[in-house]
């Protein structure tokens, strides 16, 4: 007979806690979830509903005091030509930035997911994340210099003889300006650059989950590369593309710094919110403006779900 015990002795608090959690599995769940739920529920959703409530108030046009009674008057103001203009401009910019990011991000994400191994994978992550380590403002101002009339882009265009072509393009009313850094094209370029990592990473994660044998199966069954892309890669990567586009789209919708520094000072939603709650002191209209991106994102997600973007999750 052996004298080794069947039950090991308890070794203090750690063992007692482990035993308690083992007997009551829900307790551990509660302990783990309580702080984030408090944060999300109270601090985040609380302030969000305060904002929502604010948007149903209105401002007294003479005294500038917020009248705390529920009305849709502020929302009616949103559809006034000048405000609608801001919304449509922001929406168009966000859509263009998202599409451009997706197109540029795809080959990078595809390469990283399919071919990069070991050290090259590390180089990929570093390359994508590195810009996120430096200040957003520094990057935006750096781009202002790059895109300026005396900047490297103009210099390069002049060098290869494309200067006049670029100058002609900038004369275009719709997106032109006195230089790239003061044109909507410039705003667009900087938006695409700044939000690119948020598109690449979820896309790469989605592509990583597509097994190589699935692409081989497609080719094996007679599909061309283009058909494989359309019928297999794209649908399977769609959740990642949608996740990425949620970032690029919503971040562009809400940004108020890039349009201030780069572009022709045309107003965007973020900028409008910033100005209405600050200098203009019109908190209800600022809140109503802030609701717009939320509603747009909800519609966007509903469409994405309808398209089956989350089927392959």
């Amino acid at each position, binding site marked *: 007979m052996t004298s080794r015990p069947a039950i090991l002795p308890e070794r203090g608090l750690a063992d007692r806690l482990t035993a308690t959690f083992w007997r009551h599995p829900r307790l551990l769940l509660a302990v783990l979830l309580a702080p984030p739920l408090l944060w999300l529920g109270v601090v985040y959703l609380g302030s969000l509903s305060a904002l929502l409530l604010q948007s149903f108030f209105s401002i007294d046009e003479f005294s500038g005091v917020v009248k705390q009674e529920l009305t849709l008057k502020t929302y009616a103001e949103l559809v006034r030509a000048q405000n609608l203009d801001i919304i449509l401009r922001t929406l168009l910019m966000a859509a263009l930035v998202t599409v451009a990011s997706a197109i540029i991000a795809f080959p990078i994400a595809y390469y990283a997911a399919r071919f990069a191994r070991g050290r090259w994978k590390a180089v990929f992550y570093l390359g994508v994340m590195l810009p996120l380590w430096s200040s957003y403002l520094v990057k935006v101002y750096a781009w202002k210099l790059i895109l300026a009339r005396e900047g490297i882009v103009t210099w390069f265009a002049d060098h290869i003889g494309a200067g006049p072509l670029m100058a002609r393009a900038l004369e275009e009313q719709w997106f032109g300006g006195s230089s790239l850094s003061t044109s909507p094209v410039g705003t667009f370029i900087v938006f695409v650059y700044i939000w690119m990592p948020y598109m690449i990473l979820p896309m790469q994660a989605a592509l990583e989950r597509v*097994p190589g044998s699935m692409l*081989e*199966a497609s080719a094996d069954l*007679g*599909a061309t590369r283009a058909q494989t892309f359309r019928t297999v890669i794209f649908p399977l990567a769609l959740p990642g593309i949608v996740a990425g586009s949620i970032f690029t789209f919503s971040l562009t919708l809400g940004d108020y710094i890039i349009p201030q520094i780069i572009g022709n000072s045309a107003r965007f939603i973020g900028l409008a919110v910033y100005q209405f709650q600050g200098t203009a002191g019109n908190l209800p209209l600022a809140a109503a403006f802030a609701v717009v991106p939320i509603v747009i994102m909800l519609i966007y997600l509903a469409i994405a779900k309808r398209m089956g973007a989350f089927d392959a999750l």
Partner: protein
Amino acid sequence: MTAAVEFQSVSRHFGSTRAVDGVDLTIAEGAFFAMLGPSGSGKTTCLRLISGFEKPTGGVIRIFGQDVSDVPPNRRNVNTVFQDYALFPHMTVRDNVAYGLMVKGVDRRVRLERAEEMLALVKLPGFGDRRPGQLSGGQRQRVALARALVNEPRVLLLDEPLGALDLKLREAMQDELKALQKRLGITFVFVTHDQHEALSMADSLAVFNEGRIAQIGTPEDIYVRPQTRFVADFVGSSNVLPPEVTRTFGGPSAWASLRPEALRVVVPDGVALSGTVTALRYLGAGSRVTVALGGAEVAALVPSGQAVPTVGATVGLAFDPAALHVMGGEG
């Protein structure tokens, strides 16, 4: 008759690794051909060379007489059942099966009809609306089979097709695959590391070892007349006898193989061969008895119902001299 698949000193090297090294191979049209070997022996690479997912670094591959060196996978009339099935999770079973016709531009109504026929062929009628995720492993395999057959390929490649199935299902599928192949008359080439599977299903098989073919022949050739020690050892856990032991068994001074089932355990009186039992393994249909004699260990199969000696007992061994197969090839 042209061969369905022909390899002429084909090699596939990955850097310094010789996955496939100078393989010559001819697979007859309508054959059920197996490529057998341990993992890393080059059998799967050979399969991928036929489908076009690997390019040979040397040699020529012909499919029905045509050199396919410059033909990408999508233009080879060869289809594959993948080891992990590789069904498209975002499509219904019907769309999965119809995929090959869809990419060829076959009319929607026609291709869905064909998909339904193929599903009936693999005994999954009415499963068209489901998603691959809702099927069991065996059902998924049938879908993969239907999807590969819908294009009416001239050669069907199967990569460890039964590897993920449990024993019972595997045996049922073996019979079914065999019947299907007979019925369709398509050349089947399948890769497996399971000797029993290869022996029971194939008309002829190639045994792979370290990127080369160790032996090609009918299952009986391979099992009864192995040419190398590797083949004898790998196919059916045979006794591989070194030259001096072969002499003890009454053979010439050369390497030889002797199947455990050819050896009988007898009373040790008056027999030339006797030894001590060192291990016993119960196999269900019989027991495998390991006997130490003259510095070597040989295994004998005692059919169930007969007396099994105990470990440590002295036993005699008897065998039919015709069962002792002397191997010509070295290695």
